[in-house]
């Protein structure tokens, strides 16, 4: 797709990042926040891949993107485990319920 310029990819990535950030900031549901984080990571992936496509060293960015996907999987596993722990302790997955360290 040589006809699609780099800026389009960046705009898509930006939109995706803003959507993810909005999700993270506004959700109180822990699962929702995790999903927003996934959006953020994928926005970064798009940027990586797009820059890689339009630069002289196409493989570097793609390898980074694969690393990020792998990291996102690990992060989701740990994050979901934490959410489970929160749920067991507070019978809720609302992040405001877990404020025991506040005082």
């Amino acid at each position, binding site marked *: 797709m040589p006809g699609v310029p780099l800026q389009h990819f960046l705009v898509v990535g930006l939109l995706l990042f803003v959507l993810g950030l909005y999700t*993270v*900031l*506004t959700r*109180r549901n822990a699962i929702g*926040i995790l999903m927003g984080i996934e959006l953020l990571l994928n926005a970064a992936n798009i940027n990586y891949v797009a820059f890689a496509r339009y630069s002289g060293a196409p493989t570097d960015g793609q390898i980074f993107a694969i690393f990020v996907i792998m990291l996102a999987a690990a992060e989701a596993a740990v994050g979901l485990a934490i959410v489970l722990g929160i749920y067991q302790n507070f019978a809720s997955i609302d*992040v405001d319920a877990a404020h*025991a*360290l*506040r005082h």
Partner: protein
Amino acid sequence: MEPTAVSTLRWIPLLPLLGAVVNGFFGAAIQRRAGKGAVAALAVAPIAGAFAFALLAFVQLLGLPPEGRVLLDVVWRWIAVGSLQVNVAFLADPLSCTLLLVITGIGGLIHLYSAAYMREDDAYWRYFAYLNLFTFAMLVLVLADNLLLMFVGWEGVGFCSWALIGFWWREPVNTTAGNKAFIVNRIGDCGFVLGIFAIFWTVDTVVVRDIQAHLTLLDGRMVWGMPVVGLATLLFFVGATGKSAQIPLHVWLPDAMQGPTPVSALIHAATMVTAGVYMIARLHFLYALAPGTLAVVAGVGAATAILAATIGLVQDDIKRVLAYSTVSQLGVMFVAMGVGAWSAGVFHLVTHAFFKACLFLGAGSVIHALHHEQDMRKMGGLRTQLPVTFWTFLIATLALAGAPLTAGFFSKDEILWQAWSSPHGSPLLWGVGVAGAGLTACYMFRQIFLVFFGESRVDPHVAAHVHESPAAMTVPLVILAAGSLLVGFLGVPEAFGGANRFAAWLAPVFATGHAEGHHAVHAANLEWTLTAISVAVATMGAFLAFLVYQRRAVSADAIAAIGGGAPYRLLLHKYFLDEVYWATFGRGVLLLASIGGWIDRRVIDGIVDGSATLTRGIARLEGRFDAVVVDGLVNALAKATGALGGRLRRVQTGNINTYLYVVVGTVTLVLIARLF
């Protein structure tokens, strides 16, 4: 000649010291476990051993040629500072050997006597510890080869004298007497020390033999307008007046009679009080260079001899009579020293030790028999009940009074003759000596008649129990009485056909200070005449006592009333010297003390209190500063920290969204900052 080095002399003082240590530290336990006999044996044995060693020294000296008769035992180096080189060294020459035999011999007899006399006393061990310690100190004094070591012994005997006078310390009068003796002696000691300083300053040594060898260093040395040798000898004589109870420092000796009677015999008659005479004899070569001092010595001695004898006439205490007699006889010895009759003075010292020790021990026997009654007005007629005591007392009295052929006769006659004929002597000194002899005979026979003759005035309760003393007390009496009779024959003057072996024995010591060699030719006729006069005067004195106290031909009260009784009161109060001393020195010291007390209370205390108040004021100010400034600063800091913490902890909300907003906001701000 060089002295012969030996190592046996040290045992003479060391044995009594061992005895004193054993009885002093373990005596109480020994007395409890093994009884008083063991304590007495432990005390007498060292003296007997010391006597044996003294005899050994005597034999060794006899084996040497006369001019080389000096034994020296250097034990260890004591002080070595610059030119002051002092050894603990003991020296025996004929003079010190004579004293050694007297101290250990008569001292041993008195120890033996004490074993019985003190039998009733609980502090038996303490008594013997002191007595042995005294013997040790006296032997050190006599044996010392230098003035410093001599001073050690000199102080040692003073201390033991103090301890033994106040031996029965529960009676305040006894401890007061001890203190008086100690303090009066201290005045004399001051002179002795200054004398040592003066000698060291000029001759640069304190060793007696070295001083003698370097006498030329003293030639022409002056201090404060007088020759050093004159000053030094005068200072030494001040020491001698203290120790030997000469006017004006004689006041302690009569009071010293508060001690146990054997102590009076040993310390206050036979040995310690003769230390002054010995010291002058030891330093005779200095005195020979100081005719002015010799005149003072003779004058003081004569005055003491006559004044003490007059006081002795009116005393009622059996021991006080003897005490004044001792003072008087010491005066006679100082007359001998003052006219340069060294060996005659030492001879009288020896004979006096015998008969005065015998008299004191006899008095002790009487006191013992009468259950501690000392007042002669409550005695009388004891002749038959105490026969041994009576006969020995009589013999010693005859010797003291100078009855022909007794010890006192020869020694006193020699002194009187020298007092007349020596270049330093004069008929006046002789006259005083003869008058003293007459008074001596008078008060001694007064005592004999009051104690042993006439009808008994003894308390009837006591009279029933009067008995002769045990053998341990009578044997020393008999030996001493025999000595009083026989010792005189050691020194029969040439005029009476004798060889005067005593003077010949001492001659090597006194060879240098040849004051008495000038009149070697005894004018036999004159000496016979003078002797006859002195014997006649003494007989008259004794006869007077016989008339007054035995025949009652003249009433004693009538004699006391002569001149309105004033002379009698003067004598009874001992010329009021104690009162004068109290009024001047005693009150003077009290005045000084009260002035010192006032200064202490007003000035010193004021300064101390003032500084305390000042310190308290400063402390109060500092407290204020601490409470307000320092504490305020610390508290303010703590409050500020707390407030800051209170503010900051709001940041930690626990709300993840808040954190994320902050993160995003911060990143945004950073990006904006980067862009512009």
